[in-house]
């Protein structure tokens, strides 16, 4: 196939794509037009029904809690699969830590940068706990808070080196956090069956809207998912860091 034929084929294909694209774009609703009856309904009844001021979290952890269970186990399984894939192979070995201690931190990070990074760790942990626990009140929730918490540990790596991060979050602890977060969310669902007869039914008292301890099981679900997401992402980064910094071919 010479260049001319290839160019001709491309032109035909591109013209077809452009026509389809123009046709599709012409049929789109106008910018900002919204036609979701279910969302409008939720928006109207959520505070009265669930005492939750953030409708998104109410949908995630109450009305559609089953979907979240599926999503949570997608994350769980994919991180477990990644940990299996990146495990130490037979032809690889771990370098002893003292031999390469300087390589376990980024080269060229200045003292000031490292101090500033470590200074941010504390506020980030507080922010993570805040986003986790206030899921029912303000934007955010388990997923967002969980990954902010994982980012705090990543800052420990950036500022203090990988061995510090590993000492703070050994693999067994991280795996335990991930597993107990996932199991905790499932147990909240089972609690719905036990106490109210329906899987994932919100079985706790709703309390006053806008208070920290309100919205029934939603804050509990949010904390459980937060724990799982933090564990999952720290495990994921640890596996990558192991591969990049410690595991070597023989």
């Amino acid at each position: 196939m010479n260049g001319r034929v290839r160019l001709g084929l491309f032109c035909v294909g591109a013209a077809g794509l452009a026509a389809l694209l123009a046709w599709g774009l012409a049929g789109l609703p106008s910018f900002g037009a919204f036609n979701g009856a279910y969302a409008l309904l939720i928006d109207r009844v959520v505070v009265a029904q669930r005492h939750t001021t953030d409708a998104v979290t109410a949908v995630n952890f109450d009305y559609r809690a089953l979907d979240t269970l599926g999503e949570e186990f997608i994350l769980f399984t994919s991180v477990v699969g990644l940990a299996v894939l990146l495990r130490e192979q037979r032809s690889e070995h771990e370098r002893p830590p003292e031999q390469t201690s300087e390589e376990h931190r980024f080269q060229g990070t200045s003292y000031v940068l490292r101090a500033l990074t470590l200074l941010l760790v504390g506020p980030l942990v507080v922010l993570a706990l805040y986003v986790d626990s206030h899921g029912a009140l303000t934007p955010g929730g388990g997923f967002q808070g969980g990954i902010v918490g994982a980012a705090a540990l990543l800052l420990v790596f950036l500022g203090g080196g990988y061995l510090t991060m590993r000492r703070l979050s050994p693999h067994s602890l991280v795996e335990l956090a991930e597993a107990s977060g996932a199991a905790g969310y499932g147990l909240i669902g089972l609690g719905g069956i036990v106490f109210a007869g329906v899987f994932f039914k919100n079985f706790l008292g709703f309390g006053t809207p806008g208070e920290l301890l309100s919205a029934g099981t939603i804050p509990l679900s949010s904390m459980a998912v937060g724990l799982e997401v933090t564990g999952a992402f720290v495990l994921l980064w640890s596996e990558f860091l192991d591969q990049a910094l410690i595991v070597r071919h023989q």
Partner: protein
Amino acid sequence: MKELQAGLFVLLAVGATAVVLMRDPLRQALLVGIYGLLLALLFFVLQAPDVALSQIVVCTVAVPVMILLTLAKIRGHADDERKTPSGGDRE
């Protein structure tokens, strides 16, 4: 508000094109992070703060870190092979 949205859409188009055209994976990883931040801003301007929060952490922290660590692994691997030119993968 309309101008802000339009400006962000234009910036996103520019950013996405820059990500695709950048050939060096290291710079590409950084550009993806900036692009993700712009996308988060757009979500925020379109009044979807929940999505914006997830977007910030996933696209500016999680994904670039994974790409950078993979690049570091590949580079370390290449260094090892250079040290033992006869050896190859195993001895």
